C-alpha cells in the first residue's frame, strides 16, 4: 500500500466538517470490526456495511491507484493511514447565523482551502443572534466578525461621539 498522501487526497478533501469526520471515523471503525470479525466476508461485502458514498470513494481510490481491494493487509494499512491523517486535520470553528446547506458548506470550505490551504475542516455552530457574517475560532484564537458585532461597534462609536 502506498503511503503517498496524494492517494488519500480526494477522500481527505471531501471531508469538510467535523461532523463528517466523526461520521467517517465511525464508519471506518465499523468497517474494520466487520472486516476482521467476520473472516468469511470479502472487503466488498464489508464496504456494503458503510455509507455508500464513502464506500464508493474508497473503491475509487483503490481502482484509481491500481490497488487490489481484496488485499486485506493493504486495505488494513489503508484504513490505519487514513485514520492517522484524519487526526491531523485542523479545525476552524465558525459560528453562523443560519444552518448552512451542503452547497454553502462546500463553498465555505473551498474558500478556506483557497485562503489557508488544505488539511482544515469546519466546525459549524449556529446562533441566530449573529445575524450575518461569522465568529471565527482557530487554535485558541477568537474573533467576532459577525454582523451583530459590527452593528454594536457602530452603535458604540456613535454613542461615544455623542451623535
Amino acid at each position: 500500500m502506498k503511503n503517498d498522501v496524494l492517494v488519500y487526497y480526494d477522500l481527505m478533501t471531501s471531508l469538510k466538517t467535523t461532523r463528517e469526520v466523526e461520521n467517517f471515523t465511525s464508519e471506518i471503525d465499523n468497517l474494520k470490526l466487520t472486516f476482521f470479525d467476520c473472516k468469511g466476508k470479502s472487503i466488498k461485502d464489508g464496504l456494503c456495511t458503510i455509507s455508500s458514498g464513502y464506500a464508493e470513494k474508497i473503491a475509487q481510490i483503490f481502482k484509481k491507484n491500481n490497488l487490489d481491494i481484496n488485499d486485506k493487509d493493504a486495505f488494513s494499512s489503508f484504513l490505519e493511514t487514513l485514520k492517522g491523517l484524519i487526526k491531523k486535520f485542523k479545525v476552524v470553528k465558525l459560528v453562523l447565523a443560519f444552518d448552512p446547506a451542503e452547497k454553502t458548506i462546500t463553498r465555505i470550505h473551498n474558500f478556506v482551502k483557497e485562503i489557508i490551504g488544505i488539511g482544515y475542516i469546519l466546525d459549524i455552530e449556529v446562533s441566530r443572534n449573529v445575524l450575518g457574517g461569522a465568529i471565527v475560532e482557530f487554535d485558541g484564537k477568537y474573533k467576532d466578525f459577525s454582523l451583530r458585532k459590527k452593528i454594536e461597534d457602530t452603535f458604540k462609536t456613535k454613542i461615544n461621539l455623542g451623535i
Partner: protein
Amino acid sequence: MIFFDLVATILILSITLIVVVHNLSHNAKKNTGKTDTESDDDIKKSTDLLSQTRQKAIRLIDDANSQALDIISKANLTTDTASEAFKQEMSDISSSQLKDFKKTTSDFTKAYSQVLQDLKIKNMETFQNISKDIELNTMEEIKNFKNSMERLTTVSQDEVKKKIDSDYEASKKEIEDHKKEELQKIDSGIYELLEKISKLILGKALNLSEQEDLIEKSLEEAKKEGVFK
C-alpha cells in the same frame, strides 16, 4: 526667833519659882511637930526666910520681866527692822521680779511675735507654694484635658472623615453600579431593538449569497488579523 527665846526663859524662871515655893512649904509642914518654942523660932526664921525668899523671887521675877520686856522690845525692834528690811527686800525683789517678768514678758512677747511672724511668713510661703502647686497642677490638668480633647477631637474627626469617605465611596460605587446597570439596560434594550430591526430588515434583505459573502468576508478578515497563524 528672839521672841521664842524670851518666852522660853520666862517659862523656866516661873517653874524654878514654883519649885522653890513648894520646897519651902514642905519644910514648914515638917517643923510643925517641934516644940512651941522651937516652933516659934523656927516659924519666925521660916517666915523671915520665906519673906526673904519671896522678895528674892519677886526680884528675880521683876528682873526676869524686865529682861523679858527688854528682850521683847529688842525683839520688836529687830522685828520691825527686819520687817522693814524684808519689806524693802520684798519690794526690791518684787521690783526685780517685776522687772524680770516684764523683761521676760517682753522677750517672750518679742519671741512670740517673731515666731508668729515666722509662722506667718512660713504659712504665707506654704500657702504661696500650695497656690503655686495648685496653679501648676491646675494648668497641667487643663493642658492634659486640652490635649485629651484635641486627641479625641482628632480621633473623632478622623473617624468621621473615614466614615464619610467610606460612605462616599460606597455611595459612589453604588451610583456607578446603578449607572452601569442602567446603561447596560439601555444598551441591552437598544441592542435588542437593533437586533429586532436588523432581523426584520436584514433578514429579508440578506439572501443566501449575501450571507455567504459575509462569511467569506469574515474569513478574509480573520486571515488578515492573523487568526490562522
